[in-house]
């Protein structure tokens, strides 16, 4: 059920106070011109209170969000607002999405200048997530303070939705295969060396920062609504385990930041391995314990990234304990990368256990030379996203969600 609201900012209270003073002065002094000014002020107050208030009840709104959101990468949420009323147009309409307080994105807010009766207006709101996590969109608030800005009238339409912001992808600057010892892994085929020019077309995947822009598949991008690139490498039959130790100390702020870097690096490694045709498994300690067996393909990547996006730091759950508890079948064997915020006895014990159960294991902790040699922070994405030429197609292809309608 929609909720209506009428708010009065402090500046408007001052205006009301001033208007009252003008009225009192006019009556006291018997000055007719002052009385005219008072009439104008009173009229402005009344018009501001009632104008548009009824019109808001006739609005319906639809939210359109992109399929995938990556932290640090601008994206756009669009709102289609329709004025079902027959008479009154709505002016200066604010569209505000209500999100959680700790959401990685700020409350998206759009603006429509004019919405005539029977007209549908689209408000596109650019946004950029600060970090990974879950974004709960609970309701859409439509408000207007037209005219005069004295009162702000609003209607809140429930429209629940959820967005998952994937971890930011780091730049891979080193050779992940050699670092992880993929070629030496038991039971795995060796990776043939890639010579420039001998790449073959393999498929199409989503664009990520750092990809060669020349390989953008424009036709597919326009059709799907997001940038796609041609994938030119050959599939390989590797198995990679990414183990993320989410344990941090509650009193150390630096550990929390390093954990985010580790998760970002894990996501990068997962994406890279999947693009190379490897199968990737994921294990995370914490509540609840997560063990995703190795898998490959397009559908597997968002599942892994989603788990990484939602994984919260834990302060009590050691990794080694879980490594010992999990039964590791032989078909899961491969190479293993452990991403952790800090090095310690528990991590080393877990690494030993994993090397016994899975295969060659590498510990990557932010700040260490091994980590810094492989991953670099993502470049600031200052370029326009999406490109100007694609906005129309994006708008058409965006996934409609959260239909709301006021009763």
């Amino acid at each position, binding site marked *: 059920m929609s909720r*209506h609201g009428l708010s009065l900012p402090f500046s408007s209270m001052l205006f009301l106070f001033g208007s009252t003073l*003008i009225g*009192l*002065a006019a*009556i*006291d*002094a*018997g*000055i*007719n*011109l*002052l*009385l*005219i*000014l008072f*009439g*104008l002020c*009173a*009229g*402005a107050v*009344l*018009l501001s*209170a*009632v104008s548009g*208030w*009824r019109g808001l009840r006739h609005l319906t709104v639809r939210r359109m969000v992109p399929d995938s959101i990556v932290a640090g990468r*601008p994206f756009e949420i669009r709102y289609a607002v329709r004025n079902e009323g027959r008479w009154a147009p709505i*002016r*200066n309409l*604010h569209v505000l999405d209500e999100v*959680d*307080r*700790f959401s990685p*994105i*700020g409350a998206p*807010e759009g*603006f429509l*200048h*004019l919405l005539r009766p029977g007209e549908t207006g689209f408000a596109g*709101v*650019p*946004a*950029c997530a*600060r970090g990974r996590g879950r974004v709960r969109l609970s309701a859409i608030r439509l408000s207007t*303070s*037209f*005219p*005069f*800005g004295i009162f702000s009238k609003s209607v809140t339409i429930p429209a629940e939705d959820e967005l998952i912001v994937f971890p930011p992808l780091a730049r891979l600057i080193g050779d992940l295969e050699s670092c992880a010892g993929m070629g030496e892994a038991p039971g795995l085929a060796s990776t043939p060396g890639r010579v420039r020019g001998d790449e073959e077309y393999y498929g199409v995947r989503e664009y990520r920062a750092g990809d060669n822009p020349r390989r953008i598949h424009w036709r597919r991008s326009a059709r799907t609504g997001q940038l796609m690139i041609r994938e030119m490498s050959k599939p390989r039959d590797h198995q990679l385990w990414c183990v993320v130790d989410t344990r*941090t100390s*509650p009193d150390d*702020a630096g550990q*929390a930041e390093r954990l985010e870097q580790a998760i970002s690096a894990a996501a990068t490694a997962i994406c890279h391995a999947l693009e190379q045709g490897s199968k990737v498994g994921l294990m995370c300690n914490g509540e609840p314990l997560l063990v995703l067996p190795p898998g490959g393909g397009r559908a597997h990547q968002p599942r892994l990234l989603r788990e990484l996006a939602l994984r*919260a*730091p834990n*302060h009590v759950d050691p990794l080694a304990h879980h490594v010992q508890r999990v039964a590791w079948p032989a078909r899961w064997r491969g190479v293993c990368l452990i991403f952790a915020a800090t090095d310690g006895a528990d991590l080393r014990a877990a690494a030993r256990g994993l090397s016994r159960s899975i295969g060659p294991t590498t510990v990557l902790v932010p700040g260490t030379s091994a980590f810094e040699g492989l991953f670099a922070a993502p470049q*600031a994405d*200052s370029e*326009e*996203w999406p490109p100007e030429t694609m906005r129309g197609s994006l708008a058409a292809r965006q996934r409609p969600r959260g239909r709301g309608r006021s009763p």
Partner: protein
Amino acid sequence: MMPFGSSMRTGLVLLALLNMLPALEPDGSWWILVIAVASAILSGLSHRRVRRPDSLRWLVRVAVLASVGYLLYEMFAPQTEQTIYILDLGHFIIFLTCCKFFEMHTHRDMGLIVLMAFLLMIIGAFVSASPLFGVVLVIDITFGLAWLTTFQTRREIDQLVQRRSRELPATRATSYHAELIGGAPPFARSLRATLLLSIALVAFSVICFVAIPRAWGRGILGRMNRFVPASATGFTEEIQLRDAPIVQDETLVMRVRLLRNGKPITGEEAAPYLRGATFDRYRNGRWQRSSAGSAGALPVRSSQRIVPLYPEIDPKSVDAFTIEQQIWLESLGTGALFSMYRPVAIASSDLRRVMPGAADATLHTDDPPRGAVAYQVFSCVSEAVNFGREVPPPRPRTGGIDKIVRAFARGYFNESGEPIGPERHEDLATVICGFLRSGSFQYTLDRGTGPRVTDPMRDFLFDNPRGHCEFFASAMAGLCMSLNIPARVVSGFYGGEYNEVGGFFQFRRKDAHAWVEVYLPGRGWVTFDPSPPSPERRVQGGRGLGHAVSSFVDFLRFKWATLVVAFDTRSRGDLARWFEQWVREAQETREGTGSLLAVLRAFLWGPEMLQRWERILYWLLLVLVAVFAVLAFRVLWILSIMLQEYVMIRGKGDKAVVRKPEARFYDRLLLLLSHKGYVKPRQSTPREFALELARARREFADLPQFTEWFYEVQYGGGTLGRQRWKRLEDFLRRMREDPAFGAR
């Protein structure tokens, strides 16, 4: 981010300059407007050329200081002109606005200029009475309103983009801003869109104007309204010399037919002086009537019988040496009855009682009927015939006359210094009258200066020899009285237009006049008119576009002064009665009496006696009333819905929470959390809230545990052990004492 472009800036500056006019017009300080316009131009040039140079900033600061200094000088420095603080305040605000022209960088700056423009309009409402205020108001609620809504839109967009720019890359925020601004409708469309708003505002304003009763307050703030600069010509029962422009009022006051021995007197034979009131005492620029010497109320009855005003006069003998005046007064506002000197008999079917003034030979009634009045007055032809009622006047009261005026009269008109005998009264009066009509003094309805501290009569004689008939009459009476010659000022009507077809004189309010009567022994009170022929009267005969425009402006000024500025309780009553009478007439006299259609037709057409422009105004009023009715209905409807929702929400309010004593720690916890900025949403359960906080801030990792304890204690019947209490107290203490707690 620059909040507005050059067009918005120009519009704002023009709006501010326009709103300065009503505050500047009363005292004619147009040089301040010149400064304001120059500031606007300079600010525009500097805005385009440079961006916030330090020299400009310092210049603005110096200008603000100079404005403060000028305000103090105006308020406290001794000046010849009377200090009117609200005008000084207006000047100060105008100077501040000029300074602000150079600092229009943010929305706040722009809002301040709008606020100052509004304050100037308030000051204009206090001090102005000219239609310029109305013109500015009309521009404000059309173009100004469109500008204001455009400004509001841009401000909202800027604030929105500013909020979004915290998480967006700078280039994306800029392009988003440009995208939103680019979608704004052009100004012309905004103007059309705000037209309905303007009409609604005018409707509200008119309804407030008419509906709010007057004369409620004690006029504490009304003391600021000391400077009503414009008034209309017309007869008043008081004479106060003020430096205020007077506009020509064309309203018809009365028609007079003059008969001598049954034959009409034409306009070529005489220019009649119709006396209304006399004044013989001067004090502080105001003439007063010391004593009328009334003989008491005289019943006239509602008959055509001629009633002698003095018992010793035989009505049968009056025909021989009197002039008969048949007078139709349009309305009797003050109770004054007009007649030529000296009335001896009266007849009327409209008047109940009259009170003849024995000392000054004027007529009044204490029971003025509403509407038009007709009466006949018989007056003596010759001043010498006084029926034995000639009473020598007392010695003139010269106490209120400025000593410089008295010294001037004695030194200029009586150089010898010898005592002035009665035989010289006529000569001296003639000399003084000639002195004032000699050309040294200019007749004008607008003296063009503000109020002065000096005596107005002295100011007229020595400093500013310009004025209207009241100044001339006052000067002559004052000079005569300074020479101990009995004199008095008379106000009434003079001249008029002679209608040859009807054979009557027609007097309008613009024909109101003041002249002097000097007492000459043996001849009684003799009329002297020191006013030179008025240029305004000469203009009346002009032709051409200029004259037409001038007449129209004059007409507007008059209508504004009478219908708006001087609208009072009596006007409200008259309006209500007029409407009531018209409705009654419409119901009775229209075709198809009694039918709803006839009444509706009459209502839409309006009263038949309306002129064309009045009918247009009537229809405009109907539109406004209709708009107001629709708006009022809509407001009531929406208010009822809002009230209904409010009551519904209140009805579902939280029931009082009964907290167990041991579980009260949770309330303390919530309070401390709210101090940190984490307010528990109403829709969240305590567990959800705690989990959310624990996920977001690692320092709140224990909150879910504490919440479980709260559940156990509040709902499970459990108790908190000593260890738990210790942990809780420790946690609460840390949260209370560590300002950064919860930020990590």
